[in-house]
C-alpha cells in the first residue's frame, strides 16, 4: 500500500509535501501540460513584483555540471497581471498557490503582502529575500539577519493573520541559523531553503561570461548537499519551525533526504526544466520509497535523521 503523503503544516492541509519551487513552474499553465497541479502540495509561484519587470538580457541560462546558472531577473507581469490572470488560473485548476513576493524595499514587500491578502486564494506567502536591497547598495536582504528580519516583519505585519509566511533563505551566509532565527523572531511561520548560490561560467568559444548578466544563481542537483546541510542545521536549531526544503531534488529518494533532514515540504525546481513531469514522478517515487521502508505516513519521517536513538531501535525492522 502506498504511503499517505498528506501533509499538515500549521493549519494548512496539503495533499502532498511536494511543491514546485519559485520561478520553476512558469505561471503554472506550462507545467499543467505535464503534471496535475491540483495533486501537488502547492505551486510556489514565480516571484511577484509590484510593477511588471522585463528581466535581464539573454543569454540568461548556462548549463554547468549537474546544475544550471540562471539570471532571469524576475521577469513577470507585476502584481496586477498576476492577480488578473495567473492566480485565478491556478485556482481554477484546483491548485494551492504559495505566492512568492519580491521587492527592493521593505515597504514594497509590505504593499505586495497586503494587496495579496485582499485577494482570495492565496494559501501562503513566500518571501524571496534574494533580491537586492536598495537601502544596502544592492546587497540581498537574505545576507543580513537584520535586513531579512525587517522584510519578514513587514510582510507578516501586512498579510492577513491566517496566511502563513515563509522566508526563503540564502545559503551564501556565514551562519544561516542566525538569519533563520531573525526571520522567525520577526514573525515568519516557516522557512524555505535554499535559494540559488552565486556562480559564473565563461564561454570558451566567445571568451566572455556565458550569461549576459555576467554571474547568475546556481541551482540543480549540484547544490543539493548544501541545501540538505542548511535544512539540517536550521531544523536542529529550530525544530518546531516548518521548513520547505529545496535544492536539486530529482527523485523521490532526494525528497526523502530533505524530509529526513527536517523539511516538512520539499520543492522541486530546476529539475522541472529537465523533466516537466518531475513532480508527479517524485510523488510516486516518494510513496514507493516510504512504503518500501514500512512507513505509513510521510509526516513520520520528517526530521527523523535527527533522532538517532529512534533510528537505531527501528533500523532492523526497516531493513
Amino acid at each position: 500500500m502506498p504511503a499517505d503523503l498528506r501533509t499538515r503544516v500549521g493549519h494548512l492541509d496539503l495533499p502532498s509535501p511536494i511543491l514546485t519551487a519559485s520561478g520553476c513552474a512558469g505561471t503554472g499553465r506550462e507545467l499543467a501540460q505535464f503534471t496535475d497541479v491540483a495533486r501537488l502540495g502547492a505551486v510556489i509561484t514565480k516571484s511577484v513584483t509590484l510593477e511588471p519587470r522585463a528581466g535581464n538580457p539573454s543569454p540568461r541560462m548556462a548549463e554547468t555540471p549537474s546544475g544550471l546558472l540562471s539570471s532571469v531577473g524576475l521577469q513577470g507581469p507585476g502584481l496586477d497581471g498576476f492577480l488578473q490572470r495567473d492566480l485565478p488560473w491556478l485556482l481554477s485548476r484546483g491548485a494551492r498557490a504559495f505566492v512568492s513576493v519580491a521587492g527592493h524595499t521593505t515597504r514594497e514587500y509590505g504593499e505586495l503582502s497586503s494587496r495579496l491578502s485582499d485577494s482570495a486564494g492565496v494559501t501562503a506567502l513566500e518571501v524571496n529575500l534574494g533580491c537586492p536591497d536598495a537601502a544596502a547598495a544592492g546587497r540581498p536582504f537574505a545576507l543580513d539577519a537584520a535586513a531579512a528580519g525587517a522584510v519578514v516583519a513587514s510582510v507578516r505585519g501586512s498579510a492577513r493573520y491566517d496566511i502563513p509566511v515563509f522566508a526563503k533563505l540564502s545559503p551564501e551566509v556565514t551562519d544561516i541559523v542566525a538569519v533563520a532565527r531573525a526571520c522567525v523572531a520577526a514573525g515568519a511561520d516557516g522557512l524555505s531553503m535554499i535559494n540559488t548560490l552565486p556562480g559564473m561560467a565563461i564561454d570558451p568559444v566567445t571568451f566572455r561570461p556565458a550569461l549576459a548578466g555576467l554571474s547568475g544563481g546556481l541551482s540543480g542537483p549540484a547544490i543539493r548537499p548544501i541545501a540538505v546541510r542548511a535544512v539540517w542545521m536550521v531544523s536542529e536549531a529550530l525544530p518546531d519551525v516548518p521548513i520547505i526544503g529545496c535544492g536539486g531534488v530529482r527523485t523521490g529518494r532526494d525528497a526523502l533526504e530533505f524530509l529526513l533532514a527536517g523539511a516538512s515540504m520539499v520543492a522541486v525546481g530546476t529539475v522541472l526544466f529537465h523533466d516537466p513531469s518531475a513532480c508527479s514522478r517524485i510523488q510516486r517515487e516518494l510513496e514507493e520509497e516510504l512504503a518500501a521502508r514500512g512507513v505509513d505516513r510521510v509526516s513520520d519521517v520528517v526530521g527523523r535523521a535527527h533522532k538517532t536513538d529512534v533510528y537505531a531501535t527501528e533500523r532492523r525492522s526497516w531493513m
Partner: protein
Amino acid sequence: MAGNDREGGVAPVQVRGTVLTVRRVDAYVAMTVVAPAIATRFRPGQFIAIAVGGQQSGMLARRTFSVHDVRPDHGGTVEFVFLPREPGAQWLADCRARDVLDVVGPLGRPFPLPRDPASCLLLGVGAGAPPLFALAARLTERQSATDFLLGAESADRVFGALTARRTGRSAVIATADGSLGARGSVVDMLPTVLQQARTDVIFASAPVAVLRSVCAMAGRYGIPVQALVSEPAMTCGTGLCMGCVLPAVGNDGITRMVRACVDGPVFRGDLIRWDDVGTIPFDALGAPGWKPRPGAANGAADGAVTEGRSHAG
C-alpha cells in the same frame, strides 16, 4: 496567448521514443525516433526537446531541435537534424537504433500557412534549413509555389540542396566559400530571388543576424516574413525557465520580452526588434525606461505578438 496552439488544445506530450535510425548527412546527424503522439500532432515549424545524457545526466538543459519531418511508419516517426558540436548533441549522435529517448513535443508555434495559393520563398541557413522541408510539402499540398534559397559556410553545411532542387519551383544556393552554388550569403542573393520568384511571403529559418537582414530587406519590398528563431538557446523548451526571451512588439505597440519556445519559435518578422535581440530595450514592458500608461491594460496579453495562423500571406 493568441496564436499559441496550446490554447487550441494541441498540447505537447512527453514520451519515451525509440531511436529508429541515426545517419550522417554531410556535416549533420539525422535521427529518427518513433513517437506517434508527437508525429500526429506535429505541424511544420514546431520543435521537440530531448533529455540527453541518460537518467542521472549531469546535463540538465534539454536539447531542442526543429522537426525535419514526420512519417506514418511505425505508427509515427519524427526526424530531426543537428550538428554534433557540444557534449549533449554528441551524446545524442552516439545513440544507436533501439535506444530510448525522453522526448517532449511538438512544441511552439508552427509556421502559419497562407489561406490562398501564394508564391512562397523558403530561406534556410545552415542547421536552420531542416524545418523548411515539411513546410514545403504542406505548401505544395495547398497549391502554393515554393522557391528555396539555402545558404551555409560550405557545401557540407548546406542541408537538403538536392531535395530543394527536386521539389522546389526553383532553388538558389549560396555558400560563403563558394563550394556549392554562388559565393556569398543568402542576403546577397535575396533581391534577385525575390524579383524572379515574385515572392508573396518569406519563410525564413536562420541565425538572428541573417533574419535581421532578411526582415529589413523584405520590409523594403513590402513582403511579410515568418521567421523561425534559434537564438537565444532554449533550456527547457516548455516555457518554464524564461531563458529564451527576445523583444517583440505586440499588437498594442508595447514591446515585451517574449519566449521563443512558447510564443515562437516562428514569429512575424516585423514584430521582432532584431537590433535589440540580446538586450532589454529601454522601453520594453517592465524595463527601466518603461512607464505605465494611465488606464492602459498593461501586459494584458503576454503573447499578443503572435497572430492567428492564417495571416501569413
